[in-house]
């Protein structure tokens, strides 16, 4: 039982990170019908920005916990802002000029953009694994015991996991509000349904698309910083696997659906962790992708997606 609870906690944490990335995929797909394959690498860039910021602040083992938490919030905000600029630039340079081109063109530039980002970071930061200073990691490693096991195994929620889940829930609530009840969100949904008509009712479609990329990149930065704090080590290649997993999560939940992306992320995280915990970690990715294949066969629109209805 303790083991199960522990896996559940770990799965939810990992799933939160996947969910945050998946939102970026799903929002961009919703508004321009394109899979932004560079999004995983935007997540990686966000993670590196977070790491550099932590190193610049230079926390030590003697720093009080309050300061560390304040530093974490500061890093999150700055990383979100800087990564958002990356997201905006990518859209402006690589996707906007191709809008109105054939469907595959932006897909191909997205793959190109992904390679560019990976290599850029590899050259700038080196190919070796980078570590978060152990001081910060250790200070956040403590936690509560939620369930004490008879055989000495306790289920523990660490502060890091609490931070990750807490930040994710807050951001989800905030963005759900943004999409459902603000003018910006209404414009985004209008562009999603009919871009031309949205323009004719006075919505600046290009700007709305840019904002979508900015929001997606900011959320990816949050996921990046969370990943950094959780695992303590990153390299230039983390965007690939995390990106594919998050994309899978978006498809699983129903691409284009915001709650679907979050649900998909949580499910992928849970499947992965439970598979690794009970079956063996060798085939955890196979398990996640097999579930995806099953969903695509029996429910192609995803768990929360709307089925496409072709009107005649």
């Amino acid at each position, binding site marked *: 039982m303790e083991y199960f609870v522990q896996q559940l906690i770990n799965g939810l944490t990992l799933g939160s990170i996947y969910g945050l990335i998946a939102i970026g995929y799903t929002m961009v797909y919703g508004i321009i019908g394109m899979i932004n394959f560079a999004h995983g690498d935007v997540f990686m860039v966000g993670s590196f920005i977070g790491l550099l910021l932590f190193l610049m602040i230079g926390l030590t083992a003697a720093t009080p916990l309050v300061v560390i938490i304040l530093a974490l919030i500061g890093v999150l905000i700055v990383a979100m802002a800087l990564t958002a600029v990356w997201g905006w630039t990518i859209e402006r340079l690589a996707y906007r000029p191709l809008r109105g081109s054939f469907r595959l063109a932006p897909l191909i530039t997205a793959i190109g953009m992904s390679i560019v980002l990976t290599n850029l970071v590899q050259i700038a930061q080196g190919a070796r694994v980078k570590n978060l200073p152990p001081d910060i990691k250790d200070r956040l490693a403590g936690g509560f015991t939620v369930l004490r096991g008879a055989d000495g195994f306790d289920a523990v929620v660490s502060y890091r996991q609490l931070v990750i889940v807490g930040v994710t829930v807050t951001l989800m609530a905030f963005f759900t509000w*943004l999409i459902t009840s*603000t*003018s*910006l969100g*209404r*414009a985004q*949904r*209008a562009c999603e*349904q*009919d871009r*031309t*008509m*949205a*323009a*004719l*009712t*006075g*919505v*600046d*479609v290009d700007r709305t698309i840019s904002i979508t990329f900015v929001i997606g990149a900011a959320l990816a930065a949050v996921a990046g910083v969370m990943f950094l704090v959780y695992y303590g080590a990153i390299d230039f290649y983390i965007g690939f696997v995390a990106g594919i997993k998050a994309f899978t999560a978006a498809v699983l939940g129903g691409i284009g659906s915001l709650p679907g992306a979050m649900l998909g992320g949580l499910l992928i995280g849970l499947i992965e962790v439970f598979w690794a915990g009970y079956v063996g970690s060798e085939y955890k990715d196979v398990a996640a992708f097999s579930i995806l294949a099953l969903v695509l066969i029996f429910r192609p629109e995803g768990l929360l997606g*709307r089925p496409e209805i072709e009107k005649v």
Partner: protein
Amino acid sequence: MTAGSRPILEVDGLGMRFGGLVAVDGLAFSAQRGQITALIGPNGAGKTTVFNCVTGFYRPTSGRITVQHDDGRSFALQSMPGHRICHQAKVARTFQNIRLFAGMSLLENLLVAQHNKLMRASLFTVGGLIGLPGFAAAERAAVEIAKHWLERVGLVDRADDAAGDLPYGDQRRLEIARAMCTGPALLCLDEPAAGLNPRESRELNQLLLSMRGENGLSILLIEHDMGVVMEISDHIVVLDYGKKIAEGTPAQIRNDPAVIAAYLGVEDEETAIAVTTGARP
């Protein structure tokens, strides 16, 4: 000549070619302020193409399209992007095939049309986040405007339903309401009466007549239903093969030999008779 007496819309030398096909050729006409101007003609005459040029959907091959506001400002529509045509030149339109945001509620459809105003009021959402009082007031005002138009088109009971669930005739009226929520000076309606039954069509006439001139609104209309055209238009422009063949009041058009010939020349004899008698085809 003062700004107030100049036409709201002046089209001059308008040409639109698609490859070898000349859809509109050297067209010139104007729509007077506060009036209903109808654009009629046989199928394929180029009416919708003219509309698409006016609303920025197409970039015309040649010619000038000028909108002149009450305050004397004028806008050259042929070189403006679509969202500016709506928000600065204040030209709104509806489509022949309905293009509502089907997945959004009626109210939201009308609020999207007020997007620019709300974005400015909320300082591009930032103000809304920190809860500026001006933002909440702007949002309330926008909802009031939306409610006003829902009442005008008789759909206020269904404000929270998805627009796609409305019956056809209601969707048409909602489209007009949405166009009006952008606060237009010129409203372009592409076959608003298409697919309406006679009662709905009469209600539409009433609605359009009541809207005309309200806050200086002018209407440009494409319509095949001659009952509607002859009853509500102040001025009619007749197109055939992309060229203007006649213009004038409904009475003049009804007796114009060129118009009769254009309509009799096509297979649809009933329409020709309708033009000349003013009856419904």
